[in-house]
């Protein structure tokens, strides 16, 4: 098994060994799904049964997957990475015969698979109870694949953002900003269709839609498989950005000390 695959498996096993925080998060996710789907269903009722093209069932499943995809990655990941860089723990990882940032991302992906599984499980249960089964089975299956791509893109992007810690010694501000970008531009709280034209363009031009909107849109019943291609393309770009950001950070360490 390659080192990176082994890293992913280790990330998976670590979360399974100590799932407390994830369980709490899953409960929180359940509450969010309940609250947000109530909001959007009330909205759909008020506009004659459907809002920007989503009927009550569709909007419920949209929320289930938009929230699951975002909650499928570790909360405050950027901050954690930042802390490890700032404290010098990352320098130790540079001693291994693997590319440190890729190894880290592999670990987070293994972790994310467990997380996403938990969220999708809880969400599918809630969604079915609230609004019946997913509108289309084929798109539901695609949504799951899309959600995996979503967390991959999310992880890569967070690593690129977190690299600021090489300069700032921590990344709290980056996390806060990132979260809001995903919430809005990523379509987590609001389907992109609701945006005014200029905002919708901005959303499509940025990578955040890959992290939440894509799986949500598919789960809502819209047969748009090209979303997956878009996610894959962005994944390549974001991975490259993360690698480049960390390389720049490591070069910076040369000047100021590891």
């Amino acid at each position, binding site marked *: 098994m390659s080192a990176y695959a082994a890293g992913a498996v280790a990330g998976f096993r670590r979360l399974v060994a100590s799932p407390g925080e994830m369980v709490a998060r899953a*409960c*929180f996710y359940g509450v969010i799904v309940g*609250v947000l789907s*109530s909001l959007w269903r*009330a909205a759909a*009722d*008020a506009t004659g049964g459907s*809002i920007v093209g989503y009927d009550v069932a569709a909007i419920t499943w949209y929320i289930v997957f938009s929230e699951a995809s975002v909650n499928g990655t570790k909360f405050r990941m950027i901050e954690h990475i930042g802390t490890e860089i700032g404290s010098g723990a990352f320098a130790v990882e540079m001693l291994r015969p693997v590319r440190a940032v890729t190894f880290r991302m592999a670990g987070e992906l293994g972790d994310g698979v467990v997380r996403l599984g938990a969220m999708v499980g809880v969400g599918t249960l809630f969604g079915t109870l609230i609004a019946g089964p997913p509108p289309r089975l084929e798109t539901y299956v695609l949504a799951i694949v899309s959600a995996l791509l979503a967390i991959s893109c999310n992880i890569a992007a967070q690593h690129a953002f977190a690299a600021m810690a090489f300069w700032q010694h921590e990344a709290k501000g980056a996390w806060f900003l990132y979260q809001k970008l995903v919430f809005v531009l990523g379509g987590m709280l609001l389907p992109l269709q609701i945006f*005014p034209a200029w905002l919708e363009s901005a959303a499509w031009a940025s990578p955040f839609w890959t992290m939440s909107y894509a799986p949500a849109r598919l789960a809502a019943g819209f047969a748009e498989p090209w979303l997956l291609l878009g996610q894959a393309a962005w994944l390549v770009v974001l991975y490259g950005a993360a690698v480049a950001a960390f390389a720049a950070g490591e070069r910076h360490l040369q000047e100021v000390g590891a």
Partner: protein
Amino acid sequence: MIFAATMRKAFSEAWAKRSSFWFQVGVMVANDLFFVAFWFLFFNEVESVRGWDVERTLLLLAMLATVSGAALGLFANARWLGQTISDGGMDAALALPANPLTYLLGRSVDPSMLGDLVFGPLLFVALGDLSVERVALFVLGSAVGTVVFVSFLVLLASLTFFVGGRGEHAELGFQAILMLSSYPPDIFAGATKLVLFTVVPAAFVSGLPTRLVDEFSPALASSMVGVAALFAVGAYAAFGAGVRRYRSGSAWTGA
């Protein structure tokens, strides 16, 4: 008064780390502005939802910001009370010649939440339609909300005296009430709505205070004040019972 003194000290501590202070305030304000943007986008598509339009919902936001700013900004320790108890922080508090609850509540100030305490009223003013009556009701509403919020946190924390743990349930309850207070309560159906009025009193934190400002009635006002008083007394009693148990040595505060 010891309470005022501890508050003053907490303020000067936070003020001493000034750049961090302003950063956190900025973060909170940005967070609030984000929510404003969210509601604008939402109501762009739908005129109103179960009696809540954009103005009333922004009023809700203003109310919540003010309440959480007051509760978590001025009484920042309330959120961490459960953890303080489980960490043995009660010993230090009990050694002082002051009421332990008021001491612990007044002990620290969270500057980031003070950003909310400024934003809330500003948003209220920005919504227009100001009158002496509305301002007074806004103040009354936020006072009620703050009392209920802090009392709720104290109640949750007091559980730590009886069931142990590190205050995780308090943190979950905190997140739940914050989340439920962020949206118009009328979007929820029957059973959930009941929860908002009882177990997780989010309705008293933001929903009802908002209605008070828009649709004042003496009955509503007095029942809100009554409920707030009830929560406050209940929290005080629960905490007191917990302290008595703690002092008798039978409380489990396993870390």
